[in-house]
């Protein structure tokens, strides 16, 4: 029984590693400027975690195999080095590994969160509500008009509660149900929740950020590849959570310019 169990452990450990090594279900392609930092960090962690996983499982299996059928008269033995060796190994190996990952990981995190968006980043506002995203562009004046919660009306398609009669800044705001951005231009995304908690997740962009109702947060990123990608909600927001999504279209500058003109005409 013990030997069968040891073999099962080894087989499971190998079978678990195969999909990772073979990239059977890989991360979605990276289309962002900062994404490679996250991907490198992930790859380093996978290497270290993978070695730790396989080594520990193999050792466990080996000891179960070797020490489960003692012969009469066998004496128990102590591991050379004892507990002190184990503690030292844990501090040295895992401590160093943790410290290294921590320090290098900071770089990737800082690239996303500790650098302010550049002055020429394009501001886009995203509003999340049960169960749709709406996107707003400030128009030629470069300024978003204020949101009036009491004027928000799905029925009248006034998703942002804009008062275009009285608010000068709102008059040229462009509201769309999909998000289009030009390639290789930094986007400053301002995130506003209309009702409950939601999240903005575009796996290809290596971006995930929760909306905080009552507190507008912002992130910035640059997409490097033209294409159509899904924006999905990852924060449980109610019964339609699974279906809350929108599309992000990364376009060439010319296509983006004509798209924004087209949208402005539709307002």
């Amino acid at each position: 029984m013990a030997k069968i169990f040891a073999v099962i452990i080894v087989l499971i450990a190998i079978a678990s590693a195969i999909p990772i090594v073979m990239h059977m279900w890989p991360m979605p392609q990276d289309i962002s400027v900062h994404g490679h930092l996250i991907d490198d960090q992930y790859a380093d962690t996978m290497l270290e975690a993978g070695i730790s996983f396989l080594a520990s499982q193999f050792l466990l299996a080996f000891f179960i195999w070797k020490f489960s059928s003692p012969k009469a008269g066998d004496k128990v033995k102590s591991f050379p080095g004892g507990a002190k060796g184990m503690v030292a190994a844990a501090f040295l190996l895992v401590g160093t590994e943790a410290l290294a990952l921590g320090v290098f990981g900071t770089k990737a995190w800082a690239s996303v969160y500790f650098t302010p968006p550049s002055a020429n980043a394009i501001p886009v506002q995203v509003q999340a509500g049960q169960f749709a995203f709406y996107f707003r562009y400030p128009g030629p004046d470069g300024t978003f008009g204020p949101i009036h919660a009491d004027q928000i009306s799905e029925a009248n398609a006034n998703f942002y509660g804009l008062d275009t009669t009285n608010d000068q800044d709102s008059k040229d705001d462009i509201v769309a149900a999909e998000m289009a951005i030009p390639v290789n231009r930094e986007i400053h995304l301002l995130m506003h929740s209309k009702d409950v908690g939601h999240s903005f997740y575009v796996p290809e962009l290596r971006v995930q950020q929760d909306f905080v109702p009552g507190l507008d947060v912002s992130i910035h990123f640059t997409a490097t590849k033209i294409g159509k990608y899904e924006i999905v909600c990852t924060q449980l927001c109610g019964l339609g959570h699974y279906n809350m999504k929108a599309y992000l279209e990364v376009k060439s500058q010319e296509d983006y310019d004509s798209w924004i003109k087209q949208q402005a005409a539709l307002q």
Partner: protein
Amino acid sequence: MHDMSAHAVQHGAPTSFIRNHVFSTDHKVIGKQYYALALVAALVGMLLSWLMRLHLGFATFPIPGLHLLSSTGAPGDVMTPEYYLQLMTMHGTIMVFFVLTTAPFAAFGNFFLPIQTGAEDMPFPHFNMMSFWVTFAAFVPLIASFFTGTGPTLGGWTQYAPLSAIGDVGGPGQGLGVILWATSICLFCIGQLLGALNFITTTLDMRCKGMSLMRLPLTAWGWFITSVMGLTAFAVLMPACILLILDHVAGTSFFVPANLVINDHVLPHTGGSTLLWQHLFWFFGHPEVYIAIVPGMGIVSHVLITNMRKPMLSHRVLIYSMAALAALSYMVYGHHMFVSGMNPVSSLVFSFPTLVITIPSTIIVLIWLGSLYGAKLRINSASLFALGFISMFISGGVSGFFLAQPSIDIMLHATYFVVGHFHLVMGVAAMFGIFAGTYFWFPKMTGRMMNETLGKVHFVMSFIGAYCIFMPFHYLGIAGNVRRYQAFTDDYLIPLIPVHKFITIAALFTGLAQLIFLYNLIHSRFKGELAPNDNPWEGTSLEWSTATPPPHNNFGDKMPVVYHDPYQYSVEGASSDYIMQTSTEKVSSPDEEK
């Protein structure tokens, strides 16, 4: 070390059925009651997971009879999106609170902590009785919420505000369902606080003569450390749930900010903070992970030592490592909130202790592995589950490396990677701890043995099955598969559906193994082979010195006196390969703690 046995609680054996089996103050009866509650809860939780998995794997496939559970939630026996979320929320809540907290800590701890410390009972037996019945009372509103008009809450076991705090406008079950949920958790906290007080005082004040703290078995240390965590963690969750209830019934806005708009109406709340709920919840939530797993570590160590016929490489280092886990568990909770919108500097601050906590975890695993070296390992159902625990803890532990780093968490947060991680490390591992404890202590608790063949079949099926379920979760997460979705309609998720089908089949297979366990448990309880003696596994700690099952005051006429460390196995020159703690045999063991 001091002799507190003179202060032990004296209460005569009750004579009526009610005081004996229902409102009993005997810690052993209370332990069994907790076990029974956890068993019922585990069956409900598992049934819910089957329903969820069937829906995820085969979305349009009707589940015969499901409409009987809820005609609105499953018209035509096919689950609605909201009903999936309601079942998911209840699965998480029931499993985390009523199984993983209740069974390894409250059930086994109640039964064995006083015996292992050499006490006649806990110091506050009436509090102890209350602790169980309040916990039972907590289970009632949770189950009752299935039968209210709009059903249970759909907000997930984490109940993030403001979805949880705005009432029915948030969705089905978000009104009465949340109030019942929060009431249940409040009551549960009270039960755990009463239990924790008893556990702490039993460990500190009720030890018999000769039982120094370092002579306590690792199980007792696991329960003691857990009870200290419980005392502080549940004391935060309880007021948080009270505030949540007030937001529903008293017009307060602790967790709801101003100007939220639902169905084109501005909600009347103003001034609350949604992140406040997350901070309060996770300040409880992360220690809770260790509340679920540390008793299992104690049980696994105890079971392994007995079956290895040798002590751990170091008793003290294991205890210090478990205590370090507990201390650090309060400093890492923010890693659940890396992308929550809190200050990104906080994320780095919380990331560091999260990486550091891998050090005591690694020490514990290395001590287990190092102790296996040179052992005379006995393979039985209990030791198999203990070894399985180590394998699961390693697998679930290494994925923690990814999630501890805020930058990688950007990709993996709220995906199946997280679900795979916590199911392996605190779900399956803790369950394996419970199984190891059950097979190991069953003869002491009932006087009968469990069937070993069925036990081994149960183990092999569970071990393979659990890996087949939870390893693929990691792959799904890496591919960006978001959790808490009732169907996968996104273009990039559709190719992953076959993996979900495989997981569903694996979940049904693994669940089947648990039915074998259930049969074995019930059959052995009444018809199992009688335990050959009071100490069938040749153990050394105090539970094996007393009668089977133990008498009302645990030790009969003579209170035990302890002369040895808890794990004197294979000591050179001793008359047998184990020396019980109560043995007066004089041996010079190099391991003996001074």
